[in-house]
């Protein structure tokens, strides 16, 4: 038999001392005479503890379950320190092998890099031989040499003798064009600039600092792998 929610409302009002004297009197009379209602009152009385216990029961069951699954599946393998050490060594070996292959593939370690072009000269720094390549102003020397050829995977360092009393613009143009593909302000005392690989596309270029009338050409070829 279904319970009438109105009866529950009545019980709640009784529990909250919201019944009038008459209603209270009727309430007790009904409890004594109506067995179903008396049972409902008792049920209502035990419900908070029942719900609380049910909640605890559910939580404890989940805790026990997760503890046993966790212990069985993961922890107990490592109860023995020797097993734990063995697992650590195996993991270390695996990590070493992985790192070795990854670095080999990406050329992070130069000694195992298998690219012939890069092996030949990873960073090209063209220095003057026996004297300045070009003297634009007093004490300013430029490199690389005019007409140098690089590979797009090369790092190119442009180097010159530093000047302390002036700033210059470092410019790179595509040959015979006027809009620079790369430019940077050179500060007092700066003697070089690094052009990272891939900064400019393969092609024929000209560069200068200070005096735009005096340009130097160089070529970047695509890397062959």
């Amino acid at each position, binding site marked *: 038999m279904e*319970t009438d929610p109105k009866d529950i409302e009545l019980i709640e009002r009784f529990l909250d001392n919201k019944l009038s004297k008459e209603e209270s009197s009727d309430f007790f009379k009904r409890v004594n005479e109506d067995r179903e209602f008396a*049972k409902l009152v008792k049920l209502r009385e035990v419900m908070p503890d029942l719900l609380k216990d*049910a909640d605890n*029961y559910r939580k*404890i069951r989940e805790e026990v*379950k997760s503890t046993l699954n966790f*212990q069985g599946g993961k922890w107990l393998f490592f109860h023995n320190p020797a097993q734990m050490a063995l697992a650590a060594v195996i993991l270390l070996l695996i990590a070493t092998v992985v790192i070795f292959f990854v670095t080999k593939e990406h050329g992070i370690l130069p000694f195992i890099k298998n690219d012939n072009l890069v092996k030949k000269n990873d960073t090209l720094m063209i220095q003057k031989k026996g004297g300045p390549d070009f003297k634009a102003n007093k004490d300013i020397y430029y490199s690389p040499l005019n007409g140098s050829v690089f590979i797009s995977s090369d790092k190119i360092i442009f180097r010159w003798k530093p000047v302390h009393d002036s700033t210059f613009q470092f410019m790179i143009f595509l040959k015979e064009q006027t809009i620079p593909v790369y430019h940077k302000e050179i500060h007092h005392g700066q003697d070089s600039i690094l052009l990272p690989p891939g900064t400019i596309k393969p092609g024929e270029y000209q560069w200068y600092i200070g005096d735009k009338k005096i340009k130097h050409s160089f070529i970047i070829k695509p890397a062959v792998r």
Partner: protein
Amino acid sequence: MINFVTKRIKPVHIEKFSEKELVKGLEHGDCKIISFLYNRNITAIRKMANQYPNMIFEAEDVLQEGMTRIIMNIRSGKFQGKSSIHSYLYGICRNICFKQFDGVTTVSMNNWVPELADVNDSDYFDLLQVVIDAKGKLDEKCVEIINLRFRLKDKQASTSANSKLMDFEHIAELIGIKADNARQRFSRCLEKLIYAVKNAPGIDDLLTSGSYGN
């Protein structure tokens, strides 16, 4: 999955923990103690469970459930420490098996260890499962108002019966409705729970005694 897991669990010597440590560990949900008890008892429970070909539970599930119940009983103070934890756990597991076997709901007490968990105890846990299922079917608003009224999420709530209840004026403020509407909503929701438990096994014992297993 449980079979796979238990094969890998290494036996631990029984001397490792005293009875007092076991009880305290279970009371606090100590993982080491739970694992230890599982390892210590799983063989015996397997043997017992294998005697019942129609068992619904696997031995691992029986033991897991038994451990849940023993923790509940320790925390509620029902476990008096008159028997060893292992005997008590075995008794609980045996009750679970009995109940599952061909619908038998009462247990012969012959040659029983004196401290076993009794049948009323087992019925009470079935009743709790009924409550869990019924509450799981309620909508969010019902769960919310029931939790509020009974202060089920309020750990600070006093243990005295009156202060356990949150009055509907307060509930109404919290959920933004009128107090009368809150009372009506609560009554409708509680009616669903009461309907689910009023004929469940164990409820009559509970109503007679006021608390389970006493």
